[in-house]
Structures are given as C-alpha cells and as structure tokens.
C-alpha cells in the first residue's frame, strides 16, 4: 500500500505529462486532420498579416518619398492671385523653406516620326528644378537624374511607353503642340502614389514647358501642386494655418504625416479584414476540433473509467486531454506558421502595385498572433466536450448500461459555453479591430449554428416515418440518423457552415464580377474624348464620323461644379465646410445640360423641365436623394466657373450605370443655365475595329486638336480586367482553401464515427446483410445529411451576400442560382461520397474481428 499522493505534486504532474505523451502517441493520427485545418487557418492569418505588415513598414519608411515633400498644397484649378499671396505670406513666416511647383494633367502623346501611327493618353507631370525633395528618381541604366535633363523640352518616360509608341531614348515625341526629346526612362518616381486606376503612363517634363504649352486650357483636368520642404517642427503648424486659410475653398493641404496615417489606416483595415478570413477558417477548424473531441471522449470513456478506477483524479484526466489538445493545437499552429513562411517566399516582391519592390518576410507579431489564435481556438472548442471527463464514473466498467452522466443542469458547462462564446467574440473583434464586425462574424456563425442544430432535429423528425418503410437500407439510414450519439448534428454543423461559407464566397464573387463586368456590346462606345473645346466640337464630330462610317459620335457638354450649399427644410448646408461634412457631396462633379432623358435613364419622381423663368432647374440622380437627403423642390447652390448658380430640383432620375453608351450624370441642368457659358465637351464613340485605323484616328485627332485627350477603353478594359483577374484569383484561392478545410473536417468527422458503424455493420452482416446493402444505407444517410447541410448553407449564403451587397459593398444584389443549386448538389454529393469512401473499411471488414474486439 502506498501513501496517497498530494494533488499538484511533482509526481502528480509527472503522471499528467507522461499520460499526455502516451495519449498523443496513440491518438495523433486520428486527430491530426483537424489540426491541419487549424494549421491552414493559422497559415492564412500569418501570411496575410505578414505581407501587409511588411508592406506597411516598408511604406512608412518611405512616407516622405511617397509625397516627395514634407507638405503638399494642391488645387484643381490654377492658383488665383489671392491664393498665391496667401501662400507667399505664410511661407515668408517660415525660417527655412524650399518650394517646388508641379502640375499634373492627362494628355495625349505621339511620336514625332509621322510614319508611326499611334497616340497614347499619358499622365503628364511638369516639375521645377529641385524635384524631388525626398526619394530618388531612378532611371534605367543606372543614370542619375538631374533637372537639366528636362530643360529645353526634355522628357522622361516609363519603359512601357517606349514600347507602346515604338520609340527609343533620343527620339522625339509630340505633346500638345510641342516637340520633346526623350532623355531617359523612369523606373521609380517619388511622389507618384498608388492609385487603383491610372489613366496612362507617367511622363515627366519641365514645369515651365508645361505652363507655356496650350495643354492647360479651360476645363482641363490639371492638378496644381506646391511641394514644400521645411523643418520637422514647422510642418504641422504650417499645415494647420494653411488649412485654416483655405477652409472655405477646395484647396487641399497635407503633410507626409497624413500619408503615413492614411497608408497605415488603409493597410491596417485591409490586414484586419483579410485576416478575418483566416479566422473564419480557424473557426471551421475549431468546429472540427469540437466534433472530434466529442467523439474522441466517447471513445475514451472506458480508458477514463479505468484510470479513475486506478486512482487518477478528475483534474488530472482533464489536464491530460486539455494538454493533448494544446500540444496538437500548438503543433498545428507551428505547421501553419511554417506554411505561411513557405508561401511568403513565393509572393512576388512587386505585389503591392506602384510601391516598388518590397521584401516579404514572416513578421514576429503575425506569427505570434496566428499561433496564439490557433491554440486558443483549439482549446476553446475542445473545452466543452472535454468537460464530460468529469462525469465519467468508474462504475461504467462494471455496468455498461449505466448512464455515463446525470441529466442535472451542469452549471460549469453552461458557464464554460458562455465564457467561450465571449472569448470568441473578443478574438473575432480583435482580429477585425472592430467590436461591431467581431459581433457580426460571431453572430453570423452562432445564427447558422443554431439554424443547423434546429435543422438537424427537424430532419430527424421529418424523416422518422420513413423508418417504417420496408426497404432495409432506407429504414436503417433513417434509424441511424435519429440514433442517440449519432454525428447527425456534428456533421451538419461542420459541413453546413463550410458550405455556407463556400457558397457565400462564390455567390459574392458572382455579384462582384457582375458589378464590375464591363459591357462589351457591339454598339458600346470604346473611345472617349475629353476636353473638347466649344469651337472644336463640330470639327471633332466630323472627323470621328468620317473615319467610322455609320457610327454616331455623341458629344455631351460638360462643366465642373461643386455643391456649395443646400437650402430646404430638412437640410440646410451653408458653405463649403457644411457640404464637405456631408462626405462625397463636397467633391467636384461633372455636370451637363440637355433637354430630355437619355436611353439609359428614367424619371422616378418629379417631371420634365418647366418654363418657370424665376430659377434654373436641375435633375438629380436617385443616389443623391438617398445619401444626402436632398429632394424635389430643394434649392442647391453650385459653384461653376467661379459663378454661384441656384437651381431647384424638379426631378429625380434613375440611371442604368451599367449601360455606358450614354454616360451618366449626378446633376443634369435645364439648358438655359449654361448654354451661353464657356464649357467643354466629352465625346463617346465607337472607334474603328482595326488597330491601325484606330491608331491613325487617334494620331490625327491629337495632331489637329492637341488639347483633346483620348481614352481608348480597349486599353482601360484590359487594365480593369487585370485587376478583376487578380481579385478573382484571390477569391478563388480563399474559396479553394476553405473547400479543402471543409473536406478535411468532413473526412475527419466520418472517420471518427466509424467505430460506431463498424460494430453495427458487423452485427448486420452476422444477421445476413450484404456489404452492398450497408453501403447503400451509408450513402442514403450521408446523402441526406449533405443535402440538408447544403440547403441550410445555401440559404445562409443568400442572406449573407444580400446583406454584404446591400449594406457593405453597396452594389446591386443578384441571386446566384447556379452557385446555390450547384453548391447544394455538390455538398450532398461530396458528403455522400466521402461518407461511403471513408467507410469502405466498414463494408469490407469481416464481422468476427470487430465483434471480438468489442
């Protein structure tokens, strides 16, 4: 006889550790599949966070380079005398300040060699000597940039433009009416920030040359910038004073600190949202861990009873299994970190377009966070099923029929479930860096879980009458679904959530693609001309129509205007500041005037123009009414061409934005407002099909009307398609990872419940059932489960995509029938096939071996 060992003594802990190792040795093969799921989720979190953190730290180091200055002052219109005086007065107060002027505009470029029939839209930037203040303008061939390279009509271009224009360094190009010599090729340009969409390749010229050209005519889309370099401590005071000075104008002032903050905030948000996807995969893995632990503990009841019979305490046994989950969860997390490390090596260094090369490596905080979540989720999901260890009584060894645990309310279990739920909400919120998003994600999961649970109970009830059928496989498939201890609910939960997520991702992809898909109809315009002056309109129209017989060129008058106030009962916005407080209402709008409606629009409220001469009239697009609470009868004040125009809203229009043939405008005025005012035109036109013809037309247009810019949508579309392809690829990768995880959970769930079916199958076989009969039974059981999981998952996905489309992405929602029905069929098929394939052992094994083992 030995003396009882003290709880928590070293001997006691030593037993726990030894038993943990032995249990892992015996069970790891059965459990590993679920921890691979955890690994995949952790890998996704760590990979995404590492990529974005690497990008962020690289970008923050380069914040000044991104701006090429300490402070940038920018206006969309040429500086007025008054503004220049204000700026100068402020600059004079600074002890040390350097200043460079810069102008950016979109324009056309063509080779001076008239045999090369091509013209391209480019983003032209004119800079003064001294540019850039920060960063290095990197040139091809290792050449060093000097301001003198731009002097005397020199130009620096991007490598792709050389290829597009079929020219080389040393050759001449025509921009506007001026001839420039190409003196170098720019590889990296400081101050050129990432933008989702660029109108064309960048070209750098001398500021004076640009100012002296005819490109900055009325209505051109130029940005006038003043770049400043000054003492660090003077930066913010100057920015604040200038912002106050230009409070009621549309001049923008910001320092590199703001760039820093914006980059930081945007990337931070991207990091959090993307890693939520990883978190969702970890949760799927967690559901797998929960289901496996439940089955595992059922299989371990006897072992636990034996150990209790031999003197082991409940806490020791709980510790053994919790430690086992911890070790496997930790192992899974390490595997995830390793997977992420490998994946990071495959990430191209220029993946963040526009920011140059960034080396992506594993960041410590991402690895710690990912691994921590992997372990935490494993433990949280395993804890509730593990608590059943407390109820296992050694009497089980003598009387197998005795219920392993009582039916009393288990407050510890309830408290554990409550704490785990709270912990998951906290972890989800931490990942998203938002309580709201964390609560939505957790609530979504909980909702689907509850629905799946109820669906499982409903399924068992609904199919119960089928148990009276005379067809043996169906009868026993139904009985099997309702049998106590069956995995009906577990499989339905794991697979249902998986299919919910998968169908949701696919349906969302369809919605996104439909939203962005560019309409390529036969009659859709594929060439857009901007900045056509009034006196050029008829000439441009003639030229266009002569080159493409039968095609009609639509020339629309356009002006730029800003809303400076709204006068009405519910909204009273007085001045630019109030309007700016209304978000995008304060941006510059391109407006037009015309008599009637275009084919792609209809009036949904109000009516056509009236003859009321007292005030001019405007028609607004329905989103203006929805977003800014502006309605019929309200008076909007606009600043157009330096004039203030008051216009009464007489109609609300709905525009089919997907139909690009006729363009779309937020504000359309009655013609009397601007007919006599100076304005420019835009033209939409179906260009010639042959590329050579197209090139010749563009060249002739530019030669004759140098200020007119041509956007060839064929180029834009290929650029947009590249972005779409990248988005599709990213969504598909996420979808594929989730499919893989869902499959692993399913295979694991079926494999884990095999021990129950092995015994039953052995008895059925002894009683005369054939393997085929048992296989059919399994197929029916899992096919039914898969169908239900698919239906519930699909219903959840429909709801998810609707909510996301309507409220988060603000895009039109389309029911993705093919994805939903395909998803249901696929889920049913996959569950049935995996169920049967994982049970091949059950059909093949000789009954005696199983019965003897029992």
């Amino acid at each position: 006889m030995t003396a009882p060992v003290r709880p928590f003594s070293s001997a006691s802990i030593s037993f726990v550790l030894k038993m943990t190792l032995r249990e892992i040795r015996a069970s790891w093969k059965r459990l590993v599949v679920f921890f691979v799921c955890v690994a995949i989720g952790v890998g996704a979190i760590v990979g995404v966070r590492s990529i974005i953190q690497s990008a962020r730290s690289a970008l923050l180091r380069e914040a000044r380079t991104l701006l090429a200055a300490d402070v940038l002052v920018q206006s969309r219109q040429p500086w007025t005398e008054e503004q220049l005086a204000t700026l100068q007065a402020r600059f004079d107060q600074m002890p040390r300040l350097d200043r460079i002027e810069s102008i950016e505009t979109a324009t056309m470029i063509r080779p001076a060699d008239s045999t090369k029939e091509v013209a391209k839209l480019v983003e032209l930037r004119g800079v003064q000597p001294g540019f850039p203040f920060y960063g290095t303008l990197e040139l091809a061939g290792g050449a060093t940039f000097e301001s003198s390279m731009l002097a005397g009509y020199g130009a620096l271009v991007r490598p792709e433009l050389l290829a597009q224009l079929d020219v080389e360094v040393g050759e001449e190009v025509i921009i506007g009416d001026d001839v420039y010599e190409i003196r170098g090729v720019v590889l990296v340009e400081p101050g050129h920030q990432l933008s989702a969409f660029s109108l064309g390749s960048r070209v750098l010229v001398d500021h004076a040359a640009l100012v002296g050209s005819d490109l900055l005519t009325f209505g051109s889309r130029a940005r006038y910038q003043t770049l400043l370099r000054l003492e660090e401590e003077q930066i913010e005071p100057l920015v604040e004073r200038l912002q106050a000075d230009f409070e009621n104008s549309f001049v923008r002032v910001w320092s590199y600190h703001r760039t820093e903050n914006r980059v930081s905030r945007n990337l931070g948000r991207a990091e959090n949202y993307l890693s939520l996807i990883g978190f969702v995969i970890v949760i799927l893995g967690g559901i797998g861990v929960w289901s496996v632990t439940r089955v595992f503990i059922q299989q371990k009841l006897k072992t636990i009873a034996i150990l209790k019979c031999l003197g082991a305490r409940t806490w020791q046994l709980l510790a053994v299994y919790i430690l086992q989950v911890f070790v496997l969860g930790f192992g899974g997390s390490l595997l995830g970190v390793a997977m992420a490390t490998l994946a990071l090596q495959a990430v191209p260094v220029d993946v963040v377009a526009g920011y140059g090369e960034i080396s992506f490596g594993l960041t410590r905080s991402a690895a710690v966070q990912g691994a921590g979540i992997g372990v935490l989720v494993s433990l949280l999901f395993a804890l509730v099923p593990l608590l059943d260890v407390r109820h296992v009584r050694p009497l089980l060894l003598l009387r197998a029929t005795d219920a392993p645990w009582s039916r009393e309310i288990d407050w510890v279990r309830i408290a554990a479930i409550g704490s785990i739920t709270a912990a998951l909400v906290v972890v989800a919120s931490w990942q998203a860096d938002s309580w709201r998003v964390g609560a939505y994600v957790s609530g979504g999961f909980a909702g689907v879980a509850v629905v799946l649970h109820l669906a499982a109970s409903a399924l068992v009830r609904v199919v119960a009458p089928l148990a009276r059928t005379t067809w043996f496989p169906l009868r026993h498939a139904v009985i099997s679904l309702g049998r106590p201890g069956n995995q009906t609910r577990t499989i339905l939960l794991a697979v249902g959530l998986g299919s919910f997520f998968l169908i949701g991702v696919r349906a969302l992809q369809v919605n996104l693609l439909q939203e962005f898909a560019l309409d390529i109809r036969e009659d859709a315009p594929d060439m857009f001309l901007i900045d056509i002056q009034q006196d050029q309109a008829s000439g441009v129209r003639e030229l266009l129509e002569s080159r493409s017989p039968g095609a009609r060129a639509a020339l629309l008058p356009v002006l730029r205007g800003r809303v400076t106030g709204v006068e009405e009962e519910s909204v009273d916005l007085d001045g630019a500041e109030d309007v700016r407080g209304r978000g995008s209402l304060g941006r510059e709008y391109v407006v037009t005037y015309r008599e009637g409606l275009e084919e792609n629009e209809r009036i949904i409220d109000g009516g056509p123009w009236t003859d009321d001469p007292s005030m001019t009239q405007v028609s607004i697009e329905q989103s203006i009414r929805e977003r800014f609470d502006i309605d019929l009868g309200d008076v909007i004040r606009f600043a157009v061409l330096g004039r203030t125009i008051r216009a009464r809203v007489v109609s609300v229009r709905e525009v089919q934005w997907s139909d690009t043939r006729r363009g779309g405008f937020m504000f359309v005025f009655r013609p009397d407002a601007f007919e006599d005012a100076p304005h420019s035109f835009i033209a939409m036109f179906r260009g010639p099909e042959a590329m050579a013809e197209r090139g010749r037309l563009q060249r002739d247009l530019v030669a004759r009307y140098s200020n007119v810019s041509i956007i060839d949508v064929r180029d834009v579309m290929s650029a947009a398609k590249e972005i779409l392809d990248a988005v599709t690829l990213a969504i598909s990768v996420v979808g594929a990872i989730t499919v893989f995880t869902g499959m692993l959970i399913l295979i694991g769930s079926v494999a884990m419940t095999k021990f129950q079916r092995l015994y039953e199958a052995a008895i059925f076989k002894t009683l005369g059932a054939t393997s085929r009969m048992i296989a059919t039974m399994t197929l029916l059981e899992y096919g039914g489960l898969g169908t239900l999981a698919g239906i519930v998952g699909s219903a959840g996905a429909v709801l998810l995509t609707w909510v996301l489309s309507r409220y988060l992405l603000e895009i039109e929602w389309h029911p993705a029938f093919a994805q939903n029905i395909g998803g249901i069929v696929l889920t049913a098929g996959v569950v049935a096939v995996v169920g049967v394939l994982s049970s091949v052992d059950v059909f093949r094994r000789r009954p005696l071996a199983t019965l003897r083992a029992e």
Partner: protein
Amino acid sequence: MIELRGVSKTVTSGDRPLTILHPLDLFIPSGQCVSIVGPSGSGKSTLLGLIAGLDAPTTGEIWIDGVEITTLSEDALASLRGSNIGFVFQFFHLIPSLSAFENILVPLEIAGVTGAREKAEGLLQEVGLEERATHYPSQLSGGEQQRIAIARALANDPPILLADEPTGNLDSANGHHVVELLLEVNRRRGTTVVLVTHDTELAEITEVTLSMRDGRTERRQAAPGEPVAREA
C-alpha cells in the same frame, strides 16, 4: 478490513424502483480470501462495486480499513482506490493505447511511487509476461491480458484485491493459472481477496464463500468462529 453496515442499493428501472441489493451487513477481516457466488442478476457485482467505491449505496455505511467511504468525494475515492484497492475485471479493461508494461506502470505513476519502472518490471516478471512488455492489449491473449490486469491491480501493494469474474472470459487452463495467481497473492502478501465468480470449483478453493440470490445473501460458509455476513 472491509465492513458493510446496512448497505443496500436501489435503482430506477423504467419508472419503478428496483432493489438490486437488499440491506446487508458484511465483515471481511484482513487477509481473508472470500468468494461471492450466485446467478446473474443476484447482486454480486453490485456488492463488489460498492466495496470498491465505484458506486454509492442507497443506504448504509462502508468502511475500508477504518475509513467510511460513502461520504468521500469521487476524487477521494479515486485516491483511496489507488492506494488501498486493486480491481480485476472479467473483461480485463486494460487501456488499449498503452503497452502491457505501461498498463502496469500507470497506477504507480498516479501514486507517485519512486522506482516505478523497476517495480512494474518485477510485477511483469511475477506474472510471467516479461517477454510481452511492449505488446499492446490487442496483441495479447485473454489469459495474458488478465495476468497483466492482476499485475496492474497489485502495483501499489493494495491491502485489498477485488476481482469480478476473473476467470469468466478465460478457458480452463488460463482460468486455472489466474486462480493460482490470486491465491498466491493472498497467501504470500496477506492481501484480502474478494472475488465474484460463477465457478463453484473456484469458490470452493477460497476460505469463505458468500452465496447470493435476488440481491440477498443466501448461504454463508464461514471459517470457524468468523461471522462474515448477515441480513441487516
């Protein structure tokens, strides 16, 4: 020393109470070898389970070596079993994921015994299975499994060894071997042995036989001057 005072067990069968063990007094002095015989459902395994603290009686007190165990918590009972009671089951109940040697080692580790490995090796030798140390239960015959189970039950030198149908799943040769082992334990170690059996031949070898039917003791065969059981 085992003492039961007015111990009974009633369970609920369907909606009705069913008494599977009627109130009983029992006294088994240290070092005695007792067999409990009776048909299936007579309450003998229930009685053994109650003595081991695997189940709680509906009424009465159970004293093991001067400790009243019916008031002890599950963990305290586990601790008591670990140090005072060895149990041998009809179906062996070895832990399938552990080797034969590890199965013997477990109770020693739970009790925190120093030199556990040496002791386990000694026990393995004692039951004649040192060659089978690394085998898992599924790789052992029924007789071998039961010998490992006996070695495991003896690991902590418990003063009491309880055996529930220890030969019930074995052929006669293996059964004989196991019986020899149990008697040897009783003789050499002075361990109190209580075994439940169907086997009347086995029962006759023990010093005392307690016969049960329908939850009551039917016949007492006492050693001279030692009353062992009576209806409470």
